[in-house]
């Protein structure tokens, strides 16, 4: 579960706030899309939720643990590891194989034994259809494969919530359905998912609930079928 309450984010260089009292809640295991045009504030919102960006007002609560704006930079650490991110640019670790991309954090942060971490990562990659690619370096994978490695890498830390920043934007449109299927696979494991997108069709086909973000504020929300562009 993730709950966002009256979140405000200002950039010094920007006159208007990038996020204006954003509030919403996503129940555990739900798959929600955040729909918005370029510049609406999607990435900013996700960066706040994942603890990369400080926010000026409001609260982010993940499964009972709350981070308030007043908590400062240290407070954000609570979110690291609890909320996973699949960045738009993926940012796979280029010097590590697909498998090592997924075992690095569990081993270093959680102190997992290599064998255990590898067994778990291997299962994750397998579930995402990457059995054969475990030993490959990111450089040698296709765009869709890379994205699934980035998802597996985030899932390896067993986050409560997983955020995706525009997962379809860098892919061939024909892969849109594949991404949707991947999200459903992840959903089976019970992880709460929040997907930012400007792709109307994708939001409607993949998500159970849609939030529409405009100028840093949520202007509408509802079931995919009810939301009209």
């Amino acid at each position, binding site marked *: 579960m993730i709950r966002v309450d009256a979140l405000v984010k200002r950039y010094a260089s920007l006159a208007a706030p990038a996020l204006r009292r954003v509030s919403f809640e996503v129940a555990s295991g739900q798959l929600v899309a955040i729909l918005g045009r370029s510049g609406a504030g999607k990435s900013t919102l996700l960066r706040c939720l994942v603890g990369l960006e400080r926010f000026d007002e409001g609260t982010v609560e993940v499964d009972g643990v709350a981070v308030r704006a007043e908590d400062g930079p240290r407070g954000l650490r609570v979110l690291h590891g609890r909320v996973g991110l699949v960045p738009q640019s993926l940012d796979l670790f280029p010097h590590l194989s697909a498998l090592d991309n997924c075992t690095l954090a569990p081993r270093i942060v959680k102190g997992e034994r290599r064998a255990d971490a590898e067994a778990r990562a291997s299962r994750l990659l397998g579930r995402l259809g990457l059995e054969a690619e475990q030993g490959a*370096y990111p450089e040698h994978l296709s765009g869709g494969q890379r994205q699934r490695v980035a998802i597996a890498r985030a899932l390896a830390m067993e986050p409560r919530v997983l955020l995706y920043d525009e997962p379809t934007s860098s892919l061939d449109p024909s892969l849109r359905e594949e991404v949707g299927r991947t999200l459903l696979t992840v959903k089976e494991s019970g992880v709460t998912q929040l997907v930012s997108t400007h792709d109307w069709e994708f939001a409607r086909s993949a998500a159970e609930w849609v939030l529409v973000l405009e100028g840093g504020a949520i202007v509408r929300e509802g079931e995919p079928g009810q939301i009209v562009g």
Partner: protein
Amino acid sequence: MNARSALRALLVGVAAAAASPAAAAGARGGTLQAVQQRRELRWGADVFGGAPYVFQDPMDPNHLVGFEVELADAIARRLGAKARPAAGAWDKLLDLLARGDFDVALNGIEVAEEKRRVCLLSRPYYAAGERLSVRRGDPGAPRTLEAVKGRRVGALPGSLAQRILERAGAVVVTYDGGQDQIYDDLRLGRTDAVLLDDPIAHYYADVQPELETVPGSFGEVRYAVAVRLGDEALRDAIDGALSELARTGRLRALYQRWGIWNAETAALLGEPPPARPGLAEAWEAWRAAVGRPPSLRERLLVRYPRTFGLFARAAGLTLLLTLSSMALAMAVGALLAAARRYGAAPVRWLAVGVIELVRGTPLLVQLIMIYFGLPELGVKLDPFVAGWLGLGLNYAAAEAENYRAGLESVPVGQGEVATTLGLSRLQALRHVIAPQALRIAVPPMTNDVIALLKDSSLVSLVTLTELTKTYSNLAASMRDHLGLGLVVAAWYLLLGLPLARLGRLAERRLGRHLRRAAA
């Protein structure tokens, strides 16, 4: 510990070091006592100065020979000690003496008033005329003091000859030793004349048929042994030894053997002027060894093999210095780069300041400051430590910039993702950012190791006889610059090529993820 108390502790430490016996070893007649206690007289000289002073036997360069070697032995024996030579650049001998690197300096040190401010001088042990050499058959050659006005004339820096020439209005070209080079330049027309002490002219000009030495003396120079200020007891003991050597005729015999017994020295020692030159066996041996370049066969089969031990030892020193300095440069460079990229503003400025200061000043200046400047603050470093510090800190600035370039080449997203996965900043640096940065930094680092290998030649300033110094000494003693130059080049390649290969291996390993998977 706050900054102020740290500074105070540092100052107290420096003051304590300044008062330590090492810095003031010479005080209260201590050096004479020390020499007699350890039964060893350490005397400083520059082998690069060549024959007949102190040089490597051209037939077997593992031995030091020269009239001053024999003189030092004779003096030491009278002090109840054995003479042990110590290396140092000729124009730095008095600085090294003051620093305490050896007990006395004995290497054609000219008696001059201004030297008495920095050292004590013994009674002179040798006197010689200044000899002007010119190209044989050169119609325009300057043959008088009046004629050198406006002409290019070679001399040693800080010598009487230089002062005579400057007074006469000549354009003086100075060389730091390497008598052969001085006369080579004359032969090749780069200078019009050379003014040097009689023994040098005798040994280097007189063996070259293309050169001619103008009859007559252009001034008289006297050599004395230099001891540290405050070491009157040692100076007196050396004076006593010299008087006795003069009285018993040992000095004359020594000079005659080397073919440098002359009217000036005879007058100095109160002996009748020399009649006709007798047999100077040491000079004959020199002439036989180097008068005519030996055949290629003899060089390859006899002479070069005998340099092996000297070069091997020097190569060991060069390699050790290169590797340890690079290690220091990498460690300090990493700290500087980290401070510059991740530090708070004052730390960042400090790092930038250090980098710019070190990078913007010549290594030579830094070495002189470390070796000769720090003792003024009471910090007297061992030659190897001084060379290691100088090279290591100098290259640290370059390494810091390499690492910075590497760090900046890694996209910010890498660090951000690591953060979202729960890695601390240090963990992200170590496991995610550093490996990628290193790949970018390794090629310039490899370049730097090779550059460091070559720059390590500068540590001859701090009396370390590494490869280049070994080469220049040998070339001066054997009068063979080209052949030995190829030999020393081979030694440098022998050290450098494996280092370059190591760099390429590291590069390949760090870039493994960019290659197509092998079968």
